[in-house]
């Protein structure tokens, strides 16, 4: 929060509630989640956004999203172009669809990298302890003592232009997409690693893990089959809120010129393109629609994440 510009911190809510009924844990979670009004509202918006970018891509082809005509540049919204046109006369509606796919892709993949790293490091450190734990936690601390956004910028600068464009599903993506996914993941795993580590430490001493050990079950198997499922709640909540943070951070890094690069569009770099005075002033539709979509997506994911946290946390209430 202090580094307002830096990655946002998750919002913490944990009100207490004592009425736990006799249900299976999963049922309880689902029930609590569905009764969380804000989360359901968020989920609906999120489904809407996802439908928008996927159904939209059936209506508009990528060629249409990239079709330019400089003689109709910066035209206000009309029936032909409901969101108006951009700086070289491309249809902004179609571009927000394809840009949205990239933004969401970055959000989800970055979080998978984050969760992968965070879980692996946290689980290993917690399970093995000793010098492995000490070294891993020192590295975690080191990463935490550098402002995330500054580190992110240094890494973005470092990797810029070093990754070639890639072909995926018949489409061509700028190498910067991979770069941004990696660095977003690599600069955000620390707090998750700490949570996982402390969870593992407490689970490690429970009887069923001690029993598994006594039976000679290999360590990796214990981690994978017994410990990780028990830390699933932390992982899922982190993952959800992480997606929101990653989408916002991508937009910041793109805004500062070090994010996703043309010709690939993302909501973040559509805003960068709009970052010219005459555009901000005279063509508000250019930055309004991508901003609105970022806001809606991030907001809805935050609601869902909040709902999930409450649903997983037995002490929590079922309302916001």
């Amino acid at each position, binding site marked *: 929060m202090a580094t307002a510009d830096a990655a946002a911190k998750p919002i913490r809510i944990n009100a207490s509630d004592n009425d736990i009924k006799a249900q299976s844990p999963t049922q309880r979670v689902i029930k609590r989640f569905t009764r969380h009004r804000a989360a359901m509202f968020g989920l609906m918006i999120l489904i809407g956004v996802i439908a928008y970018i996927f159904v939209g891509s059936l209506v508009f082809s990528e060629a249409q999203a990239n079709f330019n005509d400089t003689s109709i540049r910066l035209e206000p919204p009309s029936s032909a172009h409901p969101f108006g046109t951009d700086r070289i006369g491309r249809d902004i509606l179609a571009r927000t669809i394809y840009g949205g796919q990239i933004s969401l892709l970055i959000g989800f993949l970055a979080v998978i990298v984050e969760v992968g790293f965070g879980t692996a490091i946290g689980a290993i450190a917690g399970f093995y302890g000793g010098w492995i734990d000490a070294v891993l936690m020192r590295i975690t601390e080191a990463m935490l003592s550098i402002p995330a956004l500054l580190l992110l*910028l240094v890494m973005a600068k470092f990797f810029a232009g070093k990754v070639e464009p890639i072909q995926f599903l018949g489409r061509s993506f700028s190498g910067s997409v991979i770069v941004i996914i990696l660095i977003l993941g690599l600069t955000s795993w620390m707090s998750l690693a700490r949570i996982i580590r402390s969870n593992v430490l407490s689970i490690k001493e429970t009887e069923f893990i001690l029993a598994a050990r006594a039976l000679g079950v290999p360590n990796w198997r214990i981690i994978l089959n017994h410990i990780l499922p028990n830390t699933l709640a932390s992982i899922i909540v982190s993952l959800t809120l992480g997606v929101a943070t990653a989408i916002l951070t991508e937009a910041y890094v793109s805004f500062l010129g070090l994010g996703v690069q043309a010709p690939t569009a993302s909501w973040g770099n559509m805003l960068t393109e709009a970052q010219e005075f005459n555009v901000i002033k005279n063509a508000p539709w250019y930055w309004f629609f991508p901003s609105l979509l970022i806001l809606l997506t991030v907001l809805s994911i935050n609601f869902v994440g909040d709902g999930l946290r409450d649903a997983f946390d037995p002490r929590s209430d079922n309302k916001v």
Partner: protein
Amino acid sequence: MGRYIIRRLLQAIPLVLLVSLTIFVLLQATGDPLATMGGRSPTRPEDKARLRRQLGLDKPILEQYLYWLIGNDWAKFDLDGDGIAESPGIRYGVLRGDFGTSIVTKQPAMKIIMDRLPNTLLLMVTSEIITLVIALVIGVVSAVRQYSFLDNALSGFSFVAFSMPIFLVGFGLLYIFAVKFREWGLPSLPTGGIFDPKEGRTLNQLVLHMILPVATITIISVAGYSRYIRSNMLEVINSDYIRTARAKGLSERSILYRHAFKNAALPLATLIGLDLPFLLGGAVVTERIFAWPGTGRLFLDHLELLDYSVLMGLLMLITVAVIVFQLLTDLMYTWLDPRIRYS
């Protein structure tokens, strides 16, 4: 206690070394600072070779790191390019208080940073204080009136503000209060900077120029703190201890402020303590939008120039501050909560 502090500080040394080495290598491997020295045209090859030699950029990365760390006044260098090392180095190294000189401005890196630090602290500390005041009000009110319309509305607003990209807030405020207000003939705010040079660094000017960037940062950060305060307050309010107080018939106000709030303040103090050192890094995006002459913009500008002395200096300053504040926060804990003892 004293031994605990010393042990913690000793443990921090390898941490700082690890951070500094990693960032140094990352920065050095990022690109050639001399490529951008030529301004609008690329630097001439002869000049590049000469400067690389003069600035010691032709040495292996680890050797350069060593010079950055402990100085190079004990070694000799070839400045004239005849292949014979004849001139002694002039750097003392970070360990002896010399953070090196900027490649581009030739000033000591620490001086460059210190020129900007007061501006950043002014912006960030003001924002932090205002943020906290607002967050406290919102957090306490929503906790006390849990599930009321007010609580739900404040929560909703918090989430929206929290999910907004900073530049949307920043440009929005700039557009409305600086550009449009001027157009409509209303009293408008300045577009950027820290004060109007024509007026000088007066309090009036500073306040005028701080309104928009402080508002931007506050809008974005209030949600995090207020939600945190709300949940802590709720936890305390529902605790046995407060129930007991209620049962004893204490007034609701006294319960709230003398007991509940005091207890909820402890985790908040920790959170603030851990957040404070990061204020040194400034607000990169906000400082850029409002042309605020702080460390965040300094970092961006010098990252563009790959001016490693300044970048390293700034990052090291923050890292050390983070470690010191972590220690201070822990110590504060023992002071606020007598149950905890470190030995």
